C-alpha cells in the first residue's frame, strides 16, 4: 500500500491526513497541539502517533507534503498607486497566494507610513503601481523609500513594466532581495496575478519556511510547499474543475471559518445573470479569495456575538443571555477550546452563522438599479454568484460542530443587494481534509479529487 501523508502546521494544531494512493481512499486523520514555538517536530510526532494508534501505517510513506500557517501565516503588505486599482490588484494577488494582507498602501508613502511598515515587519512586500506605460513616479518613489529602510523582507516588484527593472535595480543596490515579475494590473481592465503569485510561493518555500522555524521539518520530514490558505484554494479549484481530463462540481464556493479569520474562496466567472448588466470596478479573478480578519470564532468572538445578537441569531439557536458574556470571554481566552455542552455548540453555531453570512456578503458582488433616460440599467460590481451550484463549508465548526447546515445556509442569506448563491447544494468537510486535497492535487490530482468528493457530506 502506498500512503501519502499530508501535513498542516497551523498556529493551534498540527494536522495530518493519510490517503491510500492505490485504493484511492482516506485512511484517517489526526491532530495534536502545535509546537512551532519550541520544536515543531514534537507536535508532528504526536499527530503521527495519533494516526498510528488508529492502525494507519505512517512509516515510509510514498509521499509526504506539508502546508503551513504557523507563526502568523505568510504576512504581506501590498503597495500600489490608486487604492481601488493597483492596491486592490496587489491585494488580490497576495490573497490568492495564500497570504495574510496585513496592510495596503496607496499613492506615495508618507514618512509615518514608512515607519509603520517597518514596525509591521511583513514577510514579503508586494510593490505595484501604474499600469504598463502608465504612472511610474509612485512606484519609483516608494521603491526609494523602501530602499532607505532597514527592512529585510523580499520585495516582489509587480508594477508598470516601463520602470520595473529600474525599481528592482534600485532596491538591489540597497541590498534588498528584490524580484521582478509581471505587472498585476497591466491594463486598467485586466488583472494579471498568476506570475506574482508563483513568485510569492517560491519565496515562501525558499525563505519563509525557514524564518518560521519550520526548517527542521523540511530537513527531517517533508517538503512544505505552500501556505495553508493556498492549499485550500487549490482544493477549491480541484473541486470546481476536477482533475485533468475529467469534470468537477462546476463553479463552487468554499467558506473556511477559523478561530481568527473567515476565508471565502470562489472558483466562478461571476458573469452577470441579468441581461445587459454593465460591469464596473476592477475585474475579479475566476479564483478569488477574501479574508475577513474581524470574523473569527475565538479571537473576535465578542464583536461577532454583537452582530449575532442584532441579527436575531441568539433566539434561533435558543441561547439564553445570562451566561453568554462569560462563555464568550472564555472563547477569547482559550482559543483552542472545543465545544462540549449543547450551549457551547449553539454559541459556536450562532457565531459561525454570522461569520459565514457577513464574509460571503463581502465576497459576493452587488448590483444597483440605475434609471437613465434609456430606461432601467443594472450596474454590477464584483461577481454575480446567484447561479452557483455548490457551497462547501470547512473548518473546525463543520468538522466537530453540530449545526453545519444552519451555519452554511447563511452563505445564501443576508444583504439583498448582494449577488450571493441563491439555491446551491450545501456540503461540509466533515473530515477536515480540504487542505490535504489541495496538497495532494500537486502530485496526484485524480486521487485528491476522488478522496475529497467521497468525503464531503451533503447537508
Amino acid at each position, binding site marked *: 500500500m502506498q500512503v501519502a501523508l499530508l501535513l498542516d502546521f497551523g498556529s493551534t494544531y498540527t494536522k495530518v491526513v493519510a490517503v491510500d494512493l492505490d485504493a484511492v481512499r482516506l485512511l484517517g486523520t489526526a491532530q495534536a497541539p502545535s509546537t512551532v514555538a519550541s520544536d515543531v517536530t514534537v507536535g508532528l510526532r504526536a499527530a503521527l502517533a495519533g494516526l498510528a494508534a488508529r492502525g494507519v501505517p505512517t512509516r515510509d510513506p510514498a509521499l509526504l507534503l506539508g502546508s503551513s500557517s504557523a507563526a502568523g501565516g505568510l504576512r504581506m503588505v501590498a503597495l500600489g498607486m490608486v487604492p481601488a486599482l493597483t492596491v486592490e490588484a496587489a491585494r488580490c494577488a497576495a490573497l490568492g497566494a495564500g497570504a495574510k494582507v496585513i496592510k495596503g498602501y496607496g499613492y506615495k508613502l508618507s514618512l509615518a507610513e514608512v515607519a509603520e511598515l517597518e514596525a509591521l515587519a511583513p514577510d514579503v512586500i508586494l510593490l505595484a503601481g501604474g*499600469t504598463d*506605460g*502608465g*504612472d511610474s513616479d509612485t512606484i519609483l518613489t516608494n521603491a526609494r523609500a523602501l530602499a532607505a529602510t532597514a527592512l529585510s523582507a523580499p520585495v516582489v516588484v509587480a508594477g508598470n513594466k516601463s520602470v520595473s527593472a529600474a525599481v528592482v535595480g534600485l532596491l538591489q543596490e540597497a541590498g534588498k532581495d528584490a524580484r521582478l515579475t509581471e505587472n498585476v494590473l497591466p491594463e*486598467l481592465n485586466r488583472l494579471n496575478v498568476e506570475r506574482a503569485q508563483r513568485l510569492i510561493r517560491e519565496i515562501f518555500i525558499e525563505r519563509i519556511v525557514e524564518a518560521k522555524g519550520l526548517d527542521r521539518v523540511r530537513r527531517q520530514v517533508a517538503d512544505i510547499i505552500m501556505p495553508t490558505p493556498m492549499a485550500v484554494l487549490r482544493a477549491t479549484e480541484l473541486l470546481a474543475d476536477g482533475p485533468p481530463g475529467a469534470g468537477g462540481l462546476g463553479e463552487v464556493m468554499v467558506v473556511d471559518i477559523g478561530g481568527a479569520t473567515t476565508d471565502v474562496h470562489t472558483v466562478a466567472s461571476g458573469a452577470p445573470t441579468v441581461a445587459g448588466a454593465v460591469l464596473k470596478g476592477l475585474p475579479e479573478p475566476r479564483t478569488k479569495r477574501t479574508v475577513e480578519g474581524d470574523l473569527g470564532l475565538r479571537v473576535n468572538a465578542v464583536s461577532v456575538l454583537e452582530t449575532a445578537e442584532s441579527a436575531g441569531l441568539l433566539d434561533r439557536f435558543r441561547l439564553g443571555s445570562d451566561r453568554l458574556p462569560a462563555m464568550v470571554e472564555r472563547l477569547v481566552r482559550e482559543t483552542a477550546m472545543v465545544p462540549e455542552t449543547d450551549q457551547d455548540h449553539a454559541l459556536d453555531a450562532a457565531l459561525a452563522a454570522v461569520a459565514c453570512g457577513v464574509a460571503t456578503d463581502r465576497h459576493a458582488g452587488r448590483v444597483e438599479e440605475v434609471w*437613465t*433616460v434609456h430606461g432601467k*440599467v443594472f*450596474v454590477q460590481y464584483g461577481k454575480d454568484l446567484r447561479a452557483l451550484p455548490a457551497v462547501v463549508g470547512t473548518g473546525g465548526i463543520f468538522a466537530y460542530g453540530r449545526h453545519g447546515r444552519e451555519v452554511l445556509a447563511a452563505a445564501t442569506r443576508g444583504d439583498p443587494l448582494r449577488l450571493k448563491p441563491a439555491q446551491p447544494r450545501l456540503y461540509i468537510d466533515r473530515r477536515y481534509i480540504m487542505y490535504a486535497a489541495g496538497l495532494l492535487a500537486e502530485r496526484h490530482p485524480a486521487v485528491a479529487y476522488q478522496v475529497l468528493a467521497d468525503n464531503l457530506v451533503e447537508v
Partner: protein
Amino acid sequence: MGDGGLGTIDDDMPVVGIRILEYALTQAGFRVVNIGSQSSQWECIEAALETAADAILVSSVYGLGEIDCRGLGDKCREAGLADVVRYVGGNLVVTSQTQEWEEVAARFRARGFDRVYSSATRPHQVIDALRGDLSARGRLRGASCAVN
C-alpha cells in the same frame, strides 16, 4: 503619441460614439484607455492617475453633461492632474437648439475643459486639436487619453 482616457460620466451611455472615437484616436497613434459608460468623475480621475493619461475626453449625448461634469476640473487639479488636457463633446445641454453654442461652450470652459465640441464634430478635428494642445504642453510622446 499621447495617452488619454475616454468615457461617459454617470448616466450617459454613448457606447457606440466612444468606440468610434477610440478607433479614430488609436489609428492616429494615441494609446486609448476606454473606461466605458456610467463612470463616476472619480473613476475617470483614478483611471487617468494610474495610467498617467495626458488627456481626458468626456462624451455626453443625453443633455445632462453640464450637471455630470460639474467639478471635474477642480477634482483634476486636486488630484495633481491640472496639466492634463480636458475635452468634452456631444449633446451637452438638453435645449442646445435654443441656446447659442458659444454660450454653452463658455460655460463648459469655465468648468475646466480646454475644448468643447458639439455633436457635429468629426474625429479628425479632435485629433488635430489634441496633437496641438499636447505638443504645446510638451506631452506629445506616447500620450494616452482616458475616454469616458
